[in-house]
């Protein structure tokens, strides 16, 4: 197109402009290559979900959708279940290389290596009914959110309604004393309870700690400085567990890791155990007759008149060593948007219960009525460190099974007082 003739001054500026344009055209490819310093890929590590559909939904629906929207590929790294996720996470943090964001199991070990995600968490909380307070104990460190809670794996008493009815226990026991009575009746009929007390991470903590709490005992005081475990109530709780084991439980259960109670229940060896709802799902799929008679009950109340549940949290964090933490955060923000979050949670059949009040009454809970009680867990659910902070020392107590072993040592012959004293001194040594 012919340019109108210009006076000398503008011709000079035109030449400058043209030169700039020419330079720009020449430099174009170089600049656009550098502008693509956005990551081409984000790696997201998560332990494999019990409900396979949850992982499938992520891989087939969410990841491609994000790639379409932003051009960034999401690599979904499924980690093995059964305790190997934590070593991999620890390894990643130590070597400053690995996934960009992850389900940060045992985040108390490496919170300092996680990026501040308060902006995301606060926004999500505001948008979706507010967070349950208890989860902040885990995700908030020194006033900053270090992880965004994704959901809770609820743990309740799984029991065989047909056998309970047969033994004359018409409604699920409301107190621990009633629980013991029911267990005695059922064991007499050849259907003992199977309460996990071995070196697992969920099915032991999910009833032993709530039991202690319902007796009015906590491991540490609320500042996490003083050991609160040595009290007469602890001795009562230990004596109760001894009785429960001897009179109502199958012999094997003091050595049970987390999968063992599933196996025992599905092979009709036990009538009750504390677990997530994986047993019901397996039964519905493989043993339909048993699937029809499985029910879920809340943890019984203790002498304090209270009942408690243990939370098993799933939280997502972004690693500071990531090449582009901001992109990882953007992805996390997108994931937690109700447009993505709600269908994803639904694809998992509510196995992961959101810690957001907006989900308290959603219709998804009514699809399978026996899943609904798992939402109730959030009301009385506490982190295992409650009321103390969920810090590294707490993690050490958990990973060395100090409180669990207190119970099993008493069962296998150590005098109750000694077992408690040993546990207390070990915990004192850890907290320093």
């Amino acid at each position: 197109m012919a340019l109108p003739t210009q006076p000398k001054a503008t011709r000079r500026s035109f030449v400058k402009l043209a030169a700039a344009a020419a330079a720009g055209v020449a430099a174009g490819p170089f600049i656009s290559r550098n502008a693509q310093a956005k990551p081409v890929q984000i790696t997201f590590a998560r332990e494999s979900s019990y409900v396979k559909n949850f992982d499938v939904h992520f891989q087939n629906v969410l990841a491609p959708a994000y790639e379409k929207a932003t051009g960034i590929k999401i690599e979904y790294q499924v980690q093995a279940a059964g305790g190997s996720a934590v070593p991999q996470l620890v390894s990643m943090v130590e070597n400053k290389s690995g996934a960009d964001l992850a389900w940060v199991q045992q985040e108390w070990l490496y919170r300092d290596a996680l990026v501040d995600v308060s902006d995301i968490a606060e926004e999500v909380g505001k948008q979706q009914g507010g967070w349950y307070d208890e989860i902040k104990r885990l995700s908030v460190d020194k006033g900053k959110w270090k992880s965004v809670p994704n959901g809770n794996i609820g743990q309740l008493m799984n029991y065989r309604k047909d056998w309970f009815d047969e033994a004359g226990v018409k409604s699920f026991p409301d107190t621990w004393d009633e629980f013991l009575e029911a267990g005695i009746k059922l064991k007499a009929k050849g259907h003992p309870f199977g309460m996990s007390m071995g070196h697992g991470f969920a099915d032991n903590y999910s009833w032993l700690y709530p039991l202690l709490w319902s007796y009015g005992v906590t491991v540490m005081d609320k500042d996490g400085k003083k050991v609160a475990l040595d009290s007469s109530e602890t001795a009562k709780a230990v004596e109760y567990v001894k009785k429960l084991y001897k009179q109502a439980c199958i012999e094997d259960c003091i050595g049970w890791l987390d999968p063992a109670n599933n196996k025992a229940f599905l092979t009709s060896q036990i009538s009750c155990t504390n677990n997530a709802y994986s047993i019901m799902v397996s039964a519905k799929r493989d043993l339909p007759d048993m699937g029809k008679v499985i029910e879920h009950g809340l943890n019984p109340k203790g002498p304090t008149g209270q009942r408690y549940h243990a939370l098993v949290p799933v939280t997502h964090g972004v690693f500071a060593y990531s090449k582009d933490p901001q992109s990882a955060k953007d992805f996390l923000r997108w994931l937690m948007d109700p447009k993505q979050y709600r269908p994803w949670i639904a694809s998992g059949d509510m196995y992961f219960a959101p810690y957001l009040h907006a989900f308290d009454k959603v219709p998804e809970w009514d699809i399978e009525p026996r899943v609904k009680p798992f939402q109730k867990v959030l009301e009385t659910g506490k982190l295992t460190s409650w009321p103390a902070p969920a810090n590294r020392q707490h993690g050490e107590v958990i990973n060395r099974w100090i409180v669990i072993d207190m119970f099993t040592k008493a069962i296998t012959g150590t005098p109750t007082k000694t077992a408690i004293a040993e546990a207390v001194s070990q915990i004192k040594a850890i907290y320093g």
Partner: protein
Amino acid sequence: MSKILEASRAGPLAAPAHRPIGLGRLGAFVERESVFSWLMLTPPLLFLLAFLGYPFIYGVYLSFFHKEVARAAEFVGFGNFVKLYNDPIFWQAVRNTIIFTGVATVLKASGGLGMALVMNQSFRMKSFARAMLLLPFIVPTVLSTVAWQWILDPGMGLFNRLLVVSGLATTGPSWLGTPTMAMISIIMVNTWRGLPFFGISILAGLQTIPVDLHESATIDGAGTWGRFRYVTLPSLLPVILIVTTFSIVITFFDFQLVYVLTGGGPANSTHLMATYAYSLSMGAGQMGLGSAVALSMVPVLGLLLVLLTLFVRKD
């Protein structure tokens, strides 16, 4: 083979009287025993220094530090070891490891010797039998251990079903549910897995004993037991010693089996030093303390091996 035994006790090889054909001055230099040796040794030594030496030194170094995940390390001298000295779980792990290793090794060695003696006869399908007998050793440990979890199940497992069906018990024992039974179970699974290794190695040793040794012993009037005691056993001793030593080391460091089967429970009755070190480093994030446990394995193992050597020397 006696000539070979003699030969290996021969004195140092003298340098050849004349140069090999076709080598120049450099070649002659390389031909010198020490130069040739060191040239050959350099690549493997470099590899080991890089991939074994460096991690080892770092590991030892870590054990003198208080090192938590994602935090800087602080020097604590012997602090970690003092902590372990006062830690009842640590001492239990030490006891468990020694018992586990000792009993399993004795079972594997004697069972392996028996297997080798049986297999040293000729019969049809021998190679097939040999391959079958080796299967426990070949299958990845993790997988066979997972299978054993079910075999040891108190209600559904093979053992207890057989016990009940044969009328030997009303219900079988809880194989993984009491401290004593759990230890018995892990020893049993380890023995099952490791016995073929002993068997096949000792068998190889048996087959290298020259027939004429046996013949001359028979001529001298020795019966089957006599031949075993005076010919077979002494000739086998080096093989048995090597295999036993190696097995003790591997068993002492065993990790997978307990990790999968019991996680160290019940009540720490099956926690081995290896699993305890792992749970401290990776579970509690205490890498310094975990390394200290791992490092402590070396002197304890050394002690066991010294005892073994003394025991053998007594013969």
